[in-house]
């Protein structure tokens, strides 16, 4: 709310002056400013990441992000792993939604290795990817309210997420790390009765979303604390590399599933959810609508997919599968935005480079630092969560 009173451009006198290099001169001894560390462990910070905030009163005047608490060097580890061995490792690059990693790695390897994936496997991949999206959204949509003390709905959301995780356990053998989509195909057909049980879950989730609407969407407090907060001007979208729901909340009709169709998304009927206010509330709304879209997509996939088919293409022996020299870019739409792998193969059994560029890489470093300036310190976590910050994909 405070940013309606002051602005970075017009009220410069309230903020620290920049020196000739453009660096802000924050004189902490002046007692005008306090340095506050939010994170690495903080209920309002997603994952382990810390924000170094310089505040004047409850106004943030300077923000610096610090990552590195989760750096596990996966991109380095890939250098020593066969392509098939990268697959259980790469999923850890984003904990809430590991399937996009699996898909990108598998797709990249298949593209470079010239593997054609059977139709059934592609449908199953779509099921897994959409279930993963739904599962994240069930955490994120009510979770947005959690950042302002409305913890109850996010607890509810966790239960409904567990229902999807149950289905994942049934389909893939794992709840969080599914390790389902591997280079060449997937690791199993749908178990008997799976569609029925998923449909039951979807019905439950739909009725839960009505609760969410009642408790969060139609909520004066929530609206007051999200509308007009964390506005990303539309002309920032491209220079900052903003994608996904955050870009859609700014009026950009962008969705990898539509723009660069992969798998069989072009055979499905769905729209891109767009809002124009580009504030935290708009981003919440986009995600809220995405839940409905995802549920609808899951139903479409279940009705369109074949019952039987091969789940894996014939690949060379995975123990010495050499991928010919080449490089490629694979992208897919994760719940947070465009999820990109850049793969370079050098003709050996081991990848030369697999580089991940997740949406948080753009959202949560440069953009977040800029967005937090002028924000009220109590809105920091709200903004951060609305950008769907996921530190592990920044650090890998």
């Amino acid at each position: 709310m405070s940013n309606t009173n002051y602005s970075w451009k017009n009220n410069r006198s309230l903020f620290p002056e920049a020196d000739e290099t453009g660096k802000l001169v924050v004189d902490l001894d002046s007692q005008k400013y306090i340095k506050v560390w939010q994170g690495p462990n903080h209920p309002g910070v997603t994952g382990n990441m810390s924000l170094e905030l310089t505040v004047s009163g409850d106004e943030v005047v300077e923000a610096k992000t610090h990552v590195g608490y989760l750096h596990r060097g996966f991109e380095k580890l890939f250098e020593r792993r066969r392509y098939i061995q990268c697959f259980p490792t790469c999923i850890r690059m984003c904990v809430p939604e590991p399937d996009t990693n699996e898909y990108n790695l598998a797709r990249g390897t298949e593209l470079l290795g010239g593997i054609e994936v059977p139709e059934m496997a592609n449908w199953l991949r779509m099921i897994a990817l959409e279930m993963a999206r739904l599962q994240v959204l069930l955490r994120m949509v009510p979770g947005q309210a959690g950042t302002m003390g409305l913890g109850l709905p996010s607890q509810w959301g966790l239960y409904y997420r567990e229902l999807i995780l149950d289905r994942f356990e049934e389909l893939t053998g794992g709840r969080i790390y599914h390790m389902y989509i591997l280079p060449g195909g997937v690791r199993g057909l749908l178990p008997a009765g799976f569609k029925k049980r998923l449909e039951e879950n979807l019905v439950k989730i739909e009725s839960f979303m009505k609760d969410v609407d009642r408790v969060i969407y139609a909520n004066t407090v929530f609206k007051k604390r999200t509308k007009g907060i964390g506005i990303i001007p539309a002309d920032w979208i491209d220079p900052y590399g903003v994608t996904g729901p955050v870009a859609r909340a700014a009026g950009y009709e962008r969705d990898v599933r539509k723009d660069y169709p992969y798998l069989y998304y072009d055979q499905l009927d769905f729209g891109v959810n767009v809002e124009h206010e580009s504030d935290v509330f708009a981003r919440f709304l986009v995600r809220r609508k995405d839940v409905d879209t995802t549920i609808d997509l899951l139903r479409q996939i279940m009705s369109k997919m074949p019952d039987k088919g091969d789940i894996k293409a014939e690949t060379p022996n995975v123990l010495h599968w050499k991928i010919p020299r080449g490089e490629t870019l694979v992208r897919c739409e994760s719940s947070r935005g465009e999820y990109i792998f850049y793969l370079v193969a050098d003709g050996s059994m081991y990848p030369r480079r697999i580089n991940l560029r997740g949406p948080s890489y753009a959202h949560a470093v440069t953009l977040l630092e800029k967005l937090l300036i002028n924000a009220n310190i109590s809105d920091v976590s709200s903004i951060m969560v609305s950008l769907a910050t996921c530190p592990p994909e920044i650090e890998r």
Partner: protein
Amino acid sequence: MKEIIDHLKKRFPVYEIGEGPNGVILMSVEAAKLVPMLTSLKTNHGYGILVILSAVDWLEDCKFQLTYIINNPDEKRDLGIRVFIKREDAEMESIHSLWEHAATFQREIKEMFGINFPGSPRVDEPFLLEGWDNLPPMRRDFDTKQYSEDTYFPRPGRETNDPAEYMKQKLYPDE
């Protein structure tokens, strides 16, 4: 697409133009011409998004490859531009003035590969590795396994046998 390539061919010394497996056009250009080329693509051809800036270490050729993949959101097309720079005292012109978030990529590459981008904001600040005093870890001559063996201690009680070697010991040790 062809027009742009033809146009680029005329104006810039591009080479190794090829199409990647999923339709991404990739080309290489001399390092000195990269920034003018990216600027031209951004301002005149609608390539307004920097998708990724990535570095690859070709240790055996003593070269670093920097890949800039840019995207035209209206035409929904990607263009990959490769630059090869020498491995010693590697340095590359910064593109943070074209894309704000390029600074993050450059900061990470500086840390992970040791490629400097003079003028890029906060490029000298550690990104992920505070207090790191070894080789930039993503360089291929940095041996992760060796590092972990030197730094940590192995769990006692682990030993393994190669099946062929073990069978030789058991069945025909003298041959």
